[in-house]
């Protein structure tokens, strides 16, 4: 799931980059700082070398120290701060702090004349030392003199520790700040996409028929195209409807002429032509309904209020069955918004309510309900009803149970196809009013 989220990818990549950059930066900085601290440390040790050199004197070819440096660190025993003056690998003099230990100068490198070297070594008690050594020639002294001066490496390490602590803390804070900035940037930057997604959701749920709102220039063309596509879709449906209507008109008028003309024919010929024109009419109706319906299914943005449709149809059916005194009652049908094309839903409900009116004695009742994600309409009448074993049969193709009531019987069959296209269901049963009850279920929007 995360692999498909743009936000997650952006955040993950940015965070990886930030962490990598901070780690590298931290390492480089601490290396640099160590070099800097060591250089400064070495410089102070070189100062001590120069002090020692100034105390050295050559008397009658022999090297001696006028006095020792006064720095107490060179006096405190085993302080880590030591010095030793070496001539020909022999110690001429050394600091009091060495006590009775010695620097193992035989393990240490010897600088060439005029050269200063610095390195790390281990002291008498195994403590880390920083050593600086320099080799001189003194006037009146034939041998080269090497002076070793050491300082406790712990001083360097302590500085490094303090520095690393501060550095890590700063880098962590910087990292957190950057990651936060990335989060904010991704959320703000991708907000139009999120908005687009919720608008698309509205369209799918049928709450809107186009994408509204302003979008950044990067996705605006996409939104415009989408709107165009939606409009085009609607236009295609409308055109298909018109074509279907025109075709119906073009075919059915000649059929009417043909059918009426047969009235002048003898009985046997009349039956044949009537049957055939009847079949043709049935086929036209059936396939046109199907073609019309198929156009509207799956198109996002379509929805309709079943209650509104029911009251429109009630008005019309009251006129159609005006002289039969049929009362059509609508119960709880308000706020039943379902996904689907208005005309298709009108067709479904129109056929169901018309059937109910055809069979009813005096009463037709439409009861609405919401169950789960479905809107349910119960269409009932107080007519003769249908025996249980015939219930399946009347859903069949163009079947009519009673020739006495006009209508091709195709109604329910077409309704069933439409309902299934819209992922709904149709169940027949016996009504408490006495007649047929048809239970229509369609997904709510």
């Amino acid at each position, binding site marked *: 799931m995360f692999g498909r989220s743009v936000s997650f990818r952006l955040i993950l990549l940015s965070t990886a980059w930030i962490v990598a950059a901070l780690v590298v930066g931290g390492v480089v900085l601490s290396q640099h700082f160590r070099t800097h601290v060591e250089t400064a440390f070495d410089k102070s040790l070189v100062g001590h070398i120069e002090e020692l050199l100034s105390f050295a004197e050559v008397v009658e070819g022999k090297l001696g120290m006028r006095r020792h440096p006064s720095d107490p660190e060179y006096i405190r025993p085993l302080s880590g701060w030591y010095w030793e003056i070496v001539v020909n690998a022999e110690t001429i003099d050394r600091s009091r702090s060495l006590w009775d230990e010695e620097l193992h100068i035989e393990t240490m490198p010897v600088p060439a004349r005029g050269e200063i070297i610095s390195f790390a070594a281990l002291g008498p008690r195994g403590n880390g030392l920083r050593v600086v050594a320099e080799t001189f020639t003194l006037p009146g002294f034939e041998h080269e003199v090497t002076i070793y001066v050491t300082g406790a490496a712990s001083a360097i390490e302590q500085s490094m520790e303090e520095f690393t602590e501060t550095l890590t803390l700063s880098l962590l804070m910087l990292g957190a700040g950057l990651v936060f900035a990335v989060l904010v940037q991704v959320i703000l930057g991708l907000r139009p996409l999120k908005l687009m997604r919720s608008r698309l959701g509205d369209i799918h749920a049928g709450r809107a028929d186009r994408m509204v709102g302003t979008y950044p220039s990067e996705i605006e063309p996409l939104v415009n195209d989408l709107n165009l596509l939606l409009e085009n879709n609607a236009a295609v449906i409308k055109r298909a409807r018109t074509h279907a209507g025109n075709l119906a008109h073009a075919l059915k008028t000649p059929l009417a002429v043909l059918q009426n003309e047969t009235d002048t024919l003898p009985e046997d010929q009349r039956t044949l032509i009537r049957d055939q024109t009847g079949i043709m009419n049935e086929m036209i109706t059936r396939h046109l309904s199907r073609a019309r319906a198929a156009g509207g299914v799956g198109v996002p943005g379509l929805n309709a209020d079943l209650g509104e449709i029911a009251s429109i149809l009630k008005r019309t059916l009251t006129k159609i069955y005006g002289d039969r005194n049929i009362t059509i009652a609508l119960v709880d049908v308000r706020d039943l918004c379902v996904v689907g094309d208005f005309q298709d839903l*009108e067709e479904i409900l129109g056929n169901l309510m018309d059937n109910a009116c055809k069979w009813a004695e005096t009463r037709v009742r439409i009861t609405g309900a919401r169950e789960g994600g479905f809107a349910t309409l119960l269409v009932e009448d107080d007519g003769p009803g249908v025996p249980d074993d015939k219930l399946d049969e009347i859903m069949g193709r163009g079947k009519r149970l009673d020739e006495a009531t006009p209508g091709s019987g195709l109604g329910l069959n077409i309704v069933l196809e439409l309902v299934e296209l819209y992922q709904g269901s149709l169940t027949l049963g016996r009504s408490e009013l006495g007649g047929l009850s048809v239970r229509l279920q369609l997904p709510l929007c």
Partner: protein
Amino acid sequence: MRVLVVEDEPDLQAQVVRALQEAGYSVDAASDGEEGQFLGDTEPYDAVVLDLGLPKVDGITVLNHWRNNDRNMPVLILTARETWNEKVSGFDAGADDYLTKPFHMEELLARVRAIIRRSAGHASPMLECGPVTLDTRTGKVMINTAAVTLTAHELKVLSYFMHHQGRVVSQTELIEHIYDQDFDRDSNTIEVFIARLRKKLLPELIKTHRGRGYSMSCEDQDT
């Protein structure tokens, strides 16, 4: 009873006109919406059979125009389009009934009869006036239980009176509803028909209101 048929397909128009004429109506026909609308505006029809898919002006527009101008004659819509959407818009425009093509002519005749009857306020297809009954489905006329034979024109006059019982009907109105547009109208023939009806049925069935016309009043008749 005078009926207007507005249908653009000539064969179907001819069939409907013939069937209506055979059923005893005076029939005018129009082949497009414009002509149909004009006839409906100017002539007093007792019923209109109106196709929806018409050239020039479509049926719904024609019907809307009539209803907005207080032309309240009953209208039977005839159409190939049988979706509920179209039925609803037809009825909302003011249609009284709706018939989809193809149809059986008997059904069209039954529906025309029914809308005429309903618009005159009669619930039953059997119209009664005292001892006189008229079966609008068959055109059969009886006095008590005896059948009476009437000519086509006599039947038209009687039918008009039966539909408009108790109302004074002028001679002009009668002529307009009995003859179609093209008929050579002569007011004297009306007097002849009324005289014959009085003779064949009851002498006091149709009263003359001098200078105003005639009326058929049923309360006075003895049963």
